[in-house]
């Protein structure tokens, strides 16, 4: 379950990375093209950019919050499991020592 979800998060990070690398350039070049050929004016491009920027910020913010929450949960569970394992190893070592002493 965790492995599947971790892979999903890794894919999402890759997608965000691609989005961050391509969107500004595509938007800038696309807007310039549309403005130069008088299909839209600068005001329209400005408001489209503003809405896109705001939308991206809100979506990214919630994605980051949920991802961090999930990562913290996984980290806590892993720490607890590691602690349990350490305790069990200590107990096993004690028992092995006991068996050795008995023999």
């Amino acid at each position: 379950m965790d492995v599947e979800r971790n892979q999903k998060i890794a894919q999402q990070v890759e997608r965000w990375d691609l989005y961050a690398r391509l969107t500004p350039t595509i938007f800038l070049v696309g807007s310039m093209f549309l403005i130069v050929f008088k299909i839209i004016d600068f005001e329209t491009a400005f408001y489209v950019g503003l809405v896109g920027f705001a939308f991206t910020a809100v979506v990214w913010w919630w994605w980051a919050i949920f991802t961090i929450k999930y990562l913290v949960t996984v980290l806590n569970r892993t720490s607890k499991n590691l602690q349990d394992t350490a305790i069990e190893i200590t107990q096993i070592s004690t028992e092995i020592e006991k068996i050795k002493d008995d023999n």
Partner: protein
Amino acid sequence: MTTNTYGLIKAATNVISGFSMIAIIVLGVAYMSFSNAFVFQDVKIEIVNNPVENSRDIEFMMIGYKKHECNSTRVYGVAYAEDGTHSHDLNLFTKQYTRNTRPGEEMPNQWSMKVPQDMISGGVYRVSMTGDFVCNYLIFQTEKSQTYDNILLEVEPR
């Protein structure tokens, strides 16, 4: 595609994306600053021949400076009677104002307007002068309007 080529392409797109982002932010801030700026700053308009005698025109004097390149497309005034009962449109120029004054310099400007024919009884008025402009700055162009209110006008009976 080799790992090296992929790394190079990734780095290049990162740099291009960074510069695009800088360009978008700089252009966005410049546009906001341009579109929110008033046409005239430190502006003052007065009628210099109060009370306007019979057969004389209303003479306006203005001082102020423009931040950007702005050309007026329409200028008109409305004279509101001080008692609030009526108003007159002022749109007949007898002396034109200097158009397309250069930005960044304080330039005195003056113009004259005919007293409306139906302003027979005279009286005290408050004039609002409105200008519609087309402004340019870098690659931007926008239409703006600015009104200057409360200019005292005294007209003698015709």
